[in-house]
């Protein structure tokens, strides 16, 4: 295996009230690897994703992305790392209502300082790839939930991040739509060569991953496929 894109060592996190979510969590994610994390509600799946994204602070342990230790970076550097190396897909889509689909998708490139026309051109390609060809100038208001999530997937991958974090991306969708979105998600991940961490309750969704990890108080446990 090549150098890991994500390396988590001995991670411990408790909630503000003092309850420990998990202790001594370890995870190593190789480039191009796609894992699903499952677990009961409240076990800290989303918190783990936030920790990986540098949006939350662990009590103990180390997280490194692409060899960069998050603990050694200040907020600005973590933000830049996120901007360049990480893509996000949320359960609630979070597509900005007053930007066109093209602008929504092109946002990460715009943030990286790419030229507007080039970014929008690339966004159109991405939209076509997720089945929304020719819709770049539409506004999110006109989309269904599944279409919205496909926009979010295009946004998460447009800047070719090394790592994509997805938090219940199918949670708000009906099973049929969920399947289609999942199919798009997996295809895009595989096609881009990115690694991905998918947090989900859905067995169907988890099945798309290379391996499935169960989050508990003592960290991640691999479930036999």
């Amino acid at each position: 295996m090549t150098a890991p894109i994500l390396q988590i060592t001995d991670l411990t996190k408790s909630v503000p009230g003092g309850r420990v979510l998990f202790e001594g969590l370890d995870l190593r994610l190789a480039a191009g690897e796609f894992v699903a994390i499952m677990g009961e509600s409240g076990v800290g799946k989303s918190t783990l994703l936030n920790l990986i994204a540098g949006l939350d602070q662990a009590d103990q342990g180390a997280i490194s992305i692409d060899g960069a230790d998050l603990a050694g970076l200040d907020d600005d550097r973590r933000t830049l790392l996120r901007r360049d190396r990480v893509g996000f897909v949320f359960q609630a889509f979070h597509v900005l209502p007053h930007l066109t689909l093209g602008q929504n998708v092109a946002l990460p490139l715009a943030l990286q300082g790419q030229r507007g026309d080039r970014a929008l051109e690339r966004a159109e390609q991405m939209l076509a790839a997720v089945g929304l060809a020719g819709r770049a100038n539409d506004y999110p208001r006109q989309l269904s939930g599944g279409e919205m999530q496909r926009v979010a997937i295009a946004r998460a991958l447009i800047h070719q991040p090394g790592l994509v974090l997805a938090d219940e991306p199918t949670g708000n969708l009906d099973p049929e739509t969920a399947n289609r979105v999942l199919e798009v998600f997996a295809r895009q991940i595989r096609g881009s060569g990115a690694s991905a961490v998918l947090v989900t309750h859905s067995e169907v969704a988890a099945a798309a991953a290379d391996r499935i990890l169960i989050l508990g108080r003592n960290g991640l446990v691999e479930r036999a496929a």
Partner: protein
Amino acid sequence: MSNAPPEQRGLAARWMILGEWRAHPMRVLTAAAAIAIGVALGLAVHLVNASALSEFSKAVSAVNGDAELQVRSTTSLGFDEGLYPKLARTSGVAAVSPVVELEAGTDRPGETVTVLGLDVLRAVVVTPSLIGRPLAAEGGDARGPTMEAAFDESAVFLSPAALVGRAVGQPIELIAGGRRATFRIAGVLPGVGEERRLAVLDIAAAQWRLGTLGRLQRLDLKLSPGVDAARVAGVLQQTLPSDAQLVSPESEERRSDSLSRAYRVNLDMLALMALLTGGFLVYSAQSLSVARRRPQFALLRVLGVRRRALLAQVMAEGIGVGVAGGGVGIALGFGLADGALRLLGGDLGGGYFAGAKPQLVLTPGPALVFLGLGLVTAVVGSLAPAREAARAQPAVALKNAGDSVDPRVTPAIWPAALLLGAGAAAAFAPAVAGVPLLGYASMALLLAGGVAAMPRLARVLLSGLKGRSFGHVAPDLAIKRLWGAPSQAAVALCGVVASTSLMVAMAVMVSSFRGSVEDWLAQVLPADLYVRIESVGTGGGFDPEEQARLASTPGVAGIAFMRTTMLRMSADAPPLALIARPEGGLDAGAPPMIGRTEPAPPGAIAVYVSEPAAWLYGWKVGQRIDLPIGGTPPGAFFVTGIWRDYARQHGAVTLESHDYTALTGDRWRSEASVTLEAGADRQDVAEALEANVPERLAGRVSVAEPATLRDMALRLFDRSFAVTYGLEAIAIVVGLAGVAATISAQTLARTKEFGMLRHLGVTKGQIVAMLATEGALLGAVGGLAGIGLGLAMSQVLIHVVNPQSFHWTMETKPPWGLLFSVGVALVVSAAGTALVAGRRAVSADAVRAVREDW
């Protein structure tokens, strides 16, 4: 990428800002409009003031003929002409032009002109702009242009303004010094602009025919080239008698500036207050918009936008609002100023520059300053929301669209207490350069403190209601929501409190002032009839014989004659009014005294000084003072009391008629108050008096009843406050508009919440009722707080700003009716806006609303 080309870095921010503006144009427009109104008002008031002042100083310098240095008499009676050769021989003085200056009536009723008696041979060196150009007369006896008129004692040269409707060669009557003399218009004064009615004639003719023999009012000086002007001024100062004073163009400028400075600064401040209100509206608009977009900002943070960039984005929005509002405001301000000059005149009705018709002075400087102020206001208004946006934790904000403030945490009160304390302390500070800058600072601090106290205050006011159930869904939900979202409530309240308190403060001050003036008028106008000579001119009036004749008019029980002249205390201050009133002149209207009185010791001349005079010159009861009246030794006058006077902002000194005559030799009187015999008919006596005035003054004497004078005075008062009322009205409208915008924005932002409530089985009607209750509560809390704060601020206006600006005090007389209506208007408009916005919000599809992200 951090090494991206810099011009591209703002692309995402630009998309975000433009997207937001496209999505909510009204919100941006309201905020920009608030800034525009503030900028426009500030610029307009400033431009009008600047135009009026430049017009006024042009008029002053027109009369002064741009002399390098002047010696002026302290009273209109002038100084002895023997000073002229004395100054002419002073080393360093190249030339001296002696001048007789007086105000004269003309054959046109009500017209006065400034008459200058000049020695043309001297004036040509010192003040060439005052030299007349002879013109050919129109008509039969036309003559070519000659210099013959230079020493002709019947020739008069008129400024273009005085020449209007007259023609060269025609006669003109001038009435001054108790004389009426006919002159012939010989030509025009080409060096005098349009701004002043001026008549120039030979100095000897002026002395002889207008009754100022042996006296001069002015010496215009030209200094030798290269001499040290300050040294010469120092030497001259030594030689001047007490009734003459050295005046430089600079001191003249200070004088004309101080004439109306307080009034102008007050208007400027009012205009700035409008801008401040605009700032609060920007703040509340931005706060709401930031609160609404909190998850969006969180998303951007997750996608890799740094805190700084987010801060910059919100600030850029503020700057955009500021630039747009400021730009529109500048254009609006120029238009407004132009309109105000046309409709109200240069003094905006303040009565300071009567007769002047100034042109709008367009200068880029003030426009840029006010544009800058608008920008700063918008930026400052955006600062707090921007910081809040940047500080939010993205992971939390992304999930939670609610208030960022934990309802269980009590908002800190100390910043508000600190601001209020500083405000109270500033109220006790003295004026800066005659302007109550710290008084205004005090008001601004009180305002800021009051606004800062709103979150806590809202909590305190609502906590009493929180635990209670009203048995209805709507009020219960409304109270819980206001209590649970304190920062949103506070934001809405900020605008309400800021505009209400300013408005209330102004209203209380004006009503107190008007009430005090009314009381004062009742006190100073006790007589049955008042006789006054219109446009009396210098030195004119009733001579002793005519006074006796008026006194013997049938039906007159008593008549007290008065004389008002001007007394220049110093070169750079507007003159005092010097009032001669009759012995024991209670029937002339006892001045309403403030505080104790003290009888004058033997040998001292007793004077009453008005409250502004006491303020301006630091006089106290029982003090011996100097007045620059010819030949009086130092400390000759004794302050026996201080009286309230709202009529003369620059001060007045009253002395007994016989003292005045003894000091000045002036036996003429220009006003009188009349007590009627029992049973005499007012109207009959008034007519008899009018019939009894000397032929010379026929048609120029008015006999008025106190009620008429009182009404006239109050009309003048209202006129001079017309602009204040106008600015106040605008502040109210801006304030209410802000409240409406805030509430409707908040309401529309909660569409999702309403959808959820609808799902829970709350009816549309209940939601609308809840919103109306919320609005009413907000209005009530804001109104109460605003009125309370406004009352506190009005005390600063009444006890600090007014005394320091205008040197008079007044009693607080709050306009309770108005305050009540303001409160009701606030509650109604807040509830009404919430109602209207709420109907729109609940009309949206409930299911769709729940599904919507933001």
